[in-house]
């Protein structure tokens, strides 16, 4: 009865039959056979973004973006409001998982050659989405205003300040003053909760529109792609959506499990007068941070800047018409090399300036990640002796 009444009310106002066609066309759009489980990573990135938006809104109810209140308000969220601890942890872990999932989505696109003509623009928007996801992480990291965040941001903005000519200006723009302080917090807050979310929404819409417009890439050579018809393709709904549902539930489980079993510590409140030993950025910046150490200031920044430039230009540099990874040994080899170096520099960055027990012996990994037998204090004493001599 009610359903009939609503149906009639809508039909009197909208031409439902005319609208049903395009909606059904989009829903049932056939996807090529090569669409596998890894093709769900794009949707999972979107799910994580939505999760970040929802948990972010909940955090905004209690969060206070001032140097005097930020730390206390996050502590309040973690202790007082109903399920506050959960949405803070889901937000923190969601940010990390989003970087991983977006990266894996990009990796899948690279391996399957989907970035090639005619989808270069979709790839470029994808790279923008990846970079903005990382900036999301960088700006959000400061907001709890704890020691780790404060000093990681100090180092991060210092690195940006080393860029020739415009560096000083960029650093001041980011910090809102000579050092990280209340102005920085305000700026990062505005970027994190106003500018980036809307920018990401816009970019995601364009990215999705392009994907829908040009269809999901097949494994056929460039310019030899055949349109997927209903008989040979897999319908987006319900077949592919079911796959996405499965991955969604698993990802949701992982997210909640991490939030409960490996919660992020809030640590100590930011103290500009106490510099902690071995300041490090978030793990996803660690490989770049480590690379910076091996080069003189400008050369380091140049090397690190090459990474995003390569990502943007890659569809135009790669002239190979093949999409099948087995027929693209150079591109795949290059990718493996990049992945390996990211991993190695990441691990070295993680180990650097720490003391570790290896095979029953204590080693100190210096700033370059080189191991030295003995403790950190012993290593420092040796360095001081050498300087005196």
């Amino acid at each position: 009865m009610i359903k009939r009444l609503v149906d009639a009310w809508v039909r009197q106002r909208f031409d439902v039959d005319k609208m049903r066609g395009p909606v059904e066309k989009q829903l049932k759009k056939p996807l090529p056979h090569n669409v596998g489980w890894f093709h769900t990573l794009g949707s999972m990135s979107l799910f994580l973004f939505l999760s970040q938006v929802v948990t972010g809104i909940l955090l905004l109810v209690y969060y206070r973006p001032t140097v005097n209140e930020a730390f206390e308000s996050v502590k309040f969220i973690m202790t007082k409001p109903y399920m506050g601890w959960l949405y803070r942890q889901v937000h923190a872990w969601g940010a990390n998982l989003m970087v991983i999932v977006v990266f894996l989505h990009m990796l899948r696109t690279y391996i399957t050659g989907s970035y090639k003509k005619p989808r270069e623009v979709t790839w470029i928007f994808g790279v923008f989405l990846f970079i903005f996801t990382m900036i999301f992480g960088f700006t959000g990291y400061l907001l709890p205003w704890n020691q780790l965040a404060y000093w990681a941001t100090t180092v991060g903005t210092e690195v940006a300040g080393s860029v020739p000519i415009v560096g000083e200006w960029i650093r001041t723009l980011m910090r809102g003053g000579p050092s990280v302080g209340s102005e920085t917090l305000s700026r990062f807050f505005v970027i994190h909760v106003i500018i980036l979310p809307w920018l990401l929404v816009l970019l995601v819409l364009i990215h999705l529109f392009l994907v829908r417009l040009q269809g999901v890439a097949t494994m056929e050579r460039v310019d030899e792609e055949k349109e997927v018809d209903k008989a040979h393709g897999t319908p987006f709904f319900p077949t592919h959506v079911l796959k996405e549902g499965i991955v969604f539930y698993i990802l949701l489980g992982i997210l909640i499990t991490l939030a409960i079993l490996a919660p992020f510590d809030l640590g100590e409140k930011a103290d500009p007068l106490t510099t902690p030993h071995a300041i490090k950025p978030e793990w996803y910046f660690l490989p770049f941070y480590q690379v910076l150490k091996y080069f003189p200031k400008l050369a380091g920044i140049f090397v690190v800047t090459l990474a995003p430039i390569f990502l943007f230009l890659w569809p135009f540099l790669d002239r190979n018409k093949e999409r099948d990874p087995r027929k693209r040994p150079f591109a795949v080899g290059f990718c493996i090399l990049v992945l390996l170096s990211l991993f190695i520099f990441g691990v070295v960055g993680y180990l650097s300036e720490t003391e570790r027990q290896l095979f029953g012996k204590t080693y100190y990994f210096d700033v370059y990640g080189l191991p030295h037998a003995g403790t950190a204090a012993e290593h420092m004493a040796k360095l001081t002796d050498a300087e005196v001599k």
Partner: protein
Amino acid sequence: MSHHRNLNHQAAHFITNERGSFFVYFGILIILLFLSTHPLFANTDNENQCIACHSDYWEEMQASIHSRNGVACQDCHGGDPAQADQALAKGPETGYIGVPEKDQAVQRCGNCHANVEFMNPYGIRTDQLARYLTSTHGKRVMVDHDMKAAACMDCHGYHDVIAVSDPNSPVYPSNVPKTCNHCHGNERLMEPYHHPTDVFDQYRESVHGKALFEKGNLAVANCAACHGSHGAVPPGVKDLGATCGKCHVNEKKYFLESPHAAAMVEGKFSECTSCHGFHDVQHPTAALYEKACLNCHATGTTEYQLGQAIERELNNAEQAFEKTKGTVKQAAIEGFFVEEEAANLEEVKTHLIEIKSVQHTLNNHFLTERHDAIVKSTDEIERSIRHKRLSHKQRQWMLVPIWVFIVIMVLVLYRKYKQLKNQKD
């Protein structure tokens, strides 16, 4: 090389020739002129001829507060320092007294230090002489002419007197016990007065002595805090409470509400020292009730039973506090937010400090009230931390139904997906 040798040769020649000699003499003259402006040499002129013979005392005086404020030899010893001739300098008309006797020295010090007009610019009180005359030391020196009793310089020093605020001064708070012990620890000196000479040793081991010598707490009681400094007299039995009460204000206040206050008025009970002792006073614990009460009350008496009851409550409150303190600390190590509990624990600590003062009323009703408040608060803190631990465990257990639901959903969706795929194939 030869060029260098030539230069050296030329330089040596320059110094040995006439022009060179002129520069050397001129340099010496400049140095002498500079030295003549130095205070040490400034007073070696005709103004103070005492130094010609007594340069050693003059040396001692240089660092003294007196020398820095223009006090010179004649102000204490008399004489005319302007006379180079010894006979004229110490002539009868010069008021020369040589080494003053103690009573003379006291008067000499008083000439300035009891002069309000003179001392006003230095902001120093001027009642020291008046107080000294009321002290046991003062009476012995000034009335009995007992020159073995302490006068100004025995505590402050002679020529090298420095400001009381200087940590090197013998009357700086941390040095006072050692300075008093200089005489009061001397058996031969104290024998005629029948004074014990182990007071310093007792004090050093007392709660006050440890706080002063080990923790450097200058506010803690030293000899002068109880006995007075310039007006030093041994406090009488009735004055002891007032002496201790200068610092232990609350204990004094509550003691006056106790049944012992009446006994104290009758002179039967020495306020604080009856239970705590005096020079060797130790950090009091509840165990004191087991020993101190027995000094006057037999076991089995109502008074003794009351003491036992108070001891139990104090121990109980202390144990509850210590246990909860451990719980809060452990919870903080485990990563729980315990600021609120820590703040409540501080409140309990305040109650505990309060109960330690209130016990001096010996009123069990007051004590029970505070004891119950402490136990209630510590119970609440323990409960709150238990609740936090429990909800942490519950969160982990919640993962079981969450994953059961996820696995079911994944299986259902996968089954449906397989069905669709099979239909298509």
